[in-house]
């Protein structure tokens, strides 16, 4: 079992695997998105208190989940990378970061778009939204650090360390923001206390979450392939690839 994992940890093997996988993942993502959006915007009934506007949670909630899950995935690959010193771990973390940042940003925007018609303000210092904002900053920090360091190996390892330190801090940050919020705000405006979930709504959000998950896997496969070609460009197997040979010719 372990041998198979290490087999796929070699960039050359992963390149092939990712190449076969990503079109399927993209297709699944597309299909699930359609299904999720259909449930969210067509099938699910309008809410008694919030009307049609609440439908944005079908994007907001899955996006928040994804931004958290992706950060955990980055921390996971970072631990792997620092322990086993594999090149692929650094590439996976780098490939995950922009997508995670995008979902965090999407979550913040959809939160604002929800807030405006519901409570009249573009931004609320709700504990969840504030923690999401800080998570977004953590993503930006990782991306800034890895972009600023020229040496690829050092950049990967430094990024891995900050990702791990960030991951350890996320629960602490969430707890302190929650405390701060209950002290100052009172509990009135809470995006988490959405209308009581009908089965259908839960299904809709779940499908959207799975769609985003499939999308993430697809885009990460694609990005890692690009990173592999870039970093391993001096090896024979990369030079022999159809796409590279064609470009060189």
């Amino acid at each position: 079992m372990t041998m198979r994992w290490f087999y796929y940890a070699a960039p050359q093997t992963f390149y092939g695997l990712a190449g076969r996988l990503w079109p399927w993942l993209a297709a699944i993502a597309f299909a699930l998105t359609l299904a999720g959006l259909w449930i969210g915007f067509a099938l699910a009934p309008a809410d008694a208190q919030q009307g049609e506007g609440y439908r944005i949670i079908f994007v907001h909630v899955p996006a928040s989940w994804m931004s958290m899950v992706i950060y955990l995935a980055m921390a996971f690959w970072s631990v792997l990378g620092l322990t086993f010193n594999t090149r692929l771990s650094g590439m996976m973390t780098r490939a995950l970061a922009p997508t995670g940042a995008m979902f965090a940003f999407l979550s913040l925007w959809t939160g604002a778009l929800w807030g405006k018609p519901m409570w009249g303000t573009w931004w609320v210092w709700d504990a969840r939204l504030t923690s999401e904002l800080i998570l977004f900053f953590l993503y930006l920090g990782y991306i800034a650090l890895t972009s600023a360091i020229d040496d690829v190996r050092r950049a990967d390892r430094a990024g891995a360390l900050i990702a791990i330190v960030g991951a350890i801090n996320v629960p602490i940050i969430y707890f302190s923001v929650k405390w701060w919020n209950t002290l100052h705000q009172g509990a009135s405006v809470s995006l988490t206390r959405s209308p009581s979930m009908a089965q259908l709504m839960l299904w809709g959000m779940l499908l959207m979450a799975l769609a985003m998950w499939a999308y993430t896997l697809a885009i990460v496969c694609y990005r890692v392939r690009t990173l592999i070609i870039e970093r391993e460009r001096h090896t024979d197997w990369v030079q022999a690839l159809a796409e590279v040979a064609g470009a060189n010719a």
Partner: protein
Amino acid sequence: MNAFFTLVVRDLRLAFRRKAEVLSGLFFFVVVAALFPLAIGPEAATLRHIGPGVLWVGALLASMLTLPRLFENDWRDGSLEHLVLSPQPLGLLVLGKIFAHWLVSGLPLVALAPLLGLQFDLPTDALGMLALSLLLGTPVLSCIGAIGAALTLGVRGGGVLIALLVLPLFVPVLVFGAGAVEALNSGLGAQAHISILLAMLLPAVCFSPWACSAALRIALE
């Protein structure tokens, strides 16, 4: 332990012989604290309300300004390699450097903050709580900030990059530190805040030297 104290004394000596670098951080704190009343207006009630927060953010930014200095000089003149190649535990040596850095950059902020608090018309017990919360909070800032400083050694855009990396991680300390003074002012009592600050201080002191050592080895590769 001899190595720990030798390094602390060495860094303190270096700081005293390069006073300008140290004092600039303190002056920054004073200037920032003065900017807020200028921007918001001198109304006493408002100032009393925003005072603890402003002073805490000012202290945070001032500590952060001095972070690049922590390892930069050692890295440039080769003494960092010396530390890494020493048979003494690197974590202990790093802790010595962080401690010296706090003595020179953090502790003066603790002393200065109550004085600046007078400009915000804060009552005496609030000033005391401000000093106490900073006393517990500034070492945590030095510890977490050191990790950022170690990761960004010699990297372009160092100072701002450290800020981006480290400010989000400072949020819990800020919330409970400034919150302690708020709690005192509103009569709720700051026991919980102080306990939590202590609870953050101990793991920071234990975990940070280890993370810094890893970061320094990565930077030296």
